[in-house]
């Protein structure tokens, strides 16, 4: 038992779910509170095996509301924490994802998306929680969400999610999908000293000087943990910089603006995309997660027929790379969004294209992936 078991450096052949758990381990996670649900259960299972090896705690909570709260509590207790879920469990986590956002709590929530609504397709893929990720908890807020498309990426992005959570003092979502979660591929886990980890940004201020929601230009407040003598008060009510409830329109304006700005002002630092074949592209495929890999073949098929098509693969889905879409819309003919839903990110694309190019969607209800031929057809249509 000890830290030597934390990073399993080497080449592995892992499912996305297991790679996600290893990402959490490598990132320094010490606490996992979760509730089993397909297709994310294997993450919880692996964490139940791995966390005790490093002196961390795995606890199977009684439901997803409890799970989400437990990881917030653990974060304020001084540990890096995470949970995972799918389908209805994600809905149950929404209430306290909101609490995490308002308390500005660094933590990580992984959603291995399955087909919905309701119990839907427990074992089959979907990407229809993308808007829920953005708007699922009540009220206005900004969120960071990543969409890995391979086991290697889910490993890397889980670490990235932990880092972003610490950097921006906020819960971060990893919005993967069943296809990636259950796919097995090579995962390279680097040596521990090569991992770039962001430690918690504990304040250097003394008790009495420190205010839990005070921040500078970058809008990012510093952290403390319970038990360190700061006697903080933290509330889910609208609050001031001290953390004290302030039930007024003025306080609301300050707090919500701050929550939005924290992400929006820093979005160019947060957002990551992959550009493929973009140099001569006249048609741009926008996709993420498993769909981006299927769309890749659609793109190849269309290229073979002479269409100049490229792909903007979203690695960060939220905040949305609006400025990139705006800029591309000035010079390309059309956008084709490929996702396992009936148009969620496609609406964002359309919003920022703002009529300057044609916008297409290749919809899919989930339960399977697209046929690459259908994507190729849509690309050809868009190129006309």
């Amino acid at each position, binding site marked *: 038992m000890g830290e030597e078991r934390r990073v399993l450096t080497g*080449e*592995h*052949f892992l499912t996305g779910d297991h790679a996600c758990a290893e990402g959490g381990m490598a990132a320094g996670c010490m606490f996992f509170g979760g509730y089993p649900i397909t*297709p994310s259960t294997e993450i919880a299972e692996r964490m139940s095996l791995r966390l005790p090896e490093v002196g961390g705690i795995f606890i199977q909570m009684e439901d997803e509301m409890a799970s989400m709260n437990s990881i917030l509590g653990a974060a304020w207790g001084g540990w890096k924490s995470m949970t995972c879920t799918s389908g209805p469990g994600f809905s149950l986590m929404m209430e306290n994802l909101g609490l995490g956002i308002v308390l500005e709590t660094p933590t990580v929530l992984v959603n291995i998306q399955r087909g919905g609504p309701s119990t839907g397709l427990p*074992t*089959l893929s979907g990407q229809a929680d993308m808007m829920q990720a953005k708007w699922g908890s009540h009220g206005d807020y900004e969120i960071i969400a990543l969409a890995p498309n391979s086991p290697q990426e889910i490993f890397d992005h889980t670490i990235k999610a932990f880092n972003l959570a610490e950097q921006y003092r906020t819960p971060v979502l990893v919005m993967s999908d*069943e*296809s990636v979660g*259950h*796919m*097995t*591929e*090579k995962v390279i886990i680097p040596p521990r000293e090569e991992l770039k980890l962001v430690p918690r940004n504990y304040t250097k201020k003394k008790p009495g000087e420190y205010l839990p929601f005070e921040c500078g230009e970058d809008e990012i407040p510093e952290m403390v943990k319970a038990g360190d003598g700061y006697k903080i008060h933290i509330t889910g009510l609208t609050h001031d910089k001290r953390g004290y409830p302030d039930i007024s329109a003025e306080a609301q304006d300050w707090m919500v603006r701050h929550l939005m700005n924290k992400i929006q002002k820093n979005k160019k630092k947060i957002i990551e995309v992959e550009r493929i074949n973009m140099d001569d592209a006249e048609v741009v495929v926008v996709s993420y997660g*498993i769909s981006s*890999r*299927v769309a*890749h*073949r659609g793109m*190849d098929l269309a290229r073979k027929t002479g269409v100049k098509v490229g792909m903007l693969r979203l690695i960060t889905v939220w905040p949305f790379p609006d400025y990139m879409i705006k800029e591309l819309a000035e010079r390309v003919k059309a956008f084709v969004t490929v996702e396992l839903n009936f148009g969620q990110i496609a609406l964002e694309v359309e919003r920022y294209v703002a009529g300057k190019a044609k916008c297409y969607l290749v919809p899919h209800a989930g339960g399977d*992936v697209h046929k*690459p031929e259908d994507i190729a057809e849509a690309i050809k249509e868009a190129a006309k």
Partner: protein
Amino acid sequence: MKGATTPSRKEVRFTGYGGQGMVVMGLILGRAAAVHDGKSATMTQSYGPEARGGASSTQCIISPSRIFYPYVIEPDVLVGMSQEGYDKHRLNIKPDGKLLYDEDLVTLSPEEKTKNIHSIPATRFAEELGRKIVANIVMLGFFCGLTDFVAEEAIRKAIEESVPKPTITLNIKAFDKGKSYALSLLEGSAAKAKS
């Protein structure tokens, strides 16, 4: 043959029923390619009610470069360990692809058009070795003898890492059995070609 594996994308579909170890076959082959043979590999399996005792199918893509599309388009090899699996997938094999099947479990369709067909009594061999459950490894040895997608040494290593420790020897025996059966078939047909 070690080290002289093919340089292009290869697709394999293993099909059988739950409990036969189709997933393990895919895991071993993928692991061998990805971890021990310097390639990329993607293994996916069918989930859903299917995974519970019914039809079970595993796909494995092996490539010298990054794999974008992770699923089988048209398999280079279809491995049939059940009639149902064979019937479902038999029409989807590359024109120059191979069909490998357990001759005690699968009866070929009278309309079967695949040219490269090889059969082995994998389950019977496994029973002779004492454990029916190693039929999948016998088949994997057979597969290895008939293809050059992944180096043999890599597959052996992956077997050792993937099966329960006390069963390594048995599994290696099963692998050898399948492999040598494949070689004897090849020699037989080579001899036939000569005569």
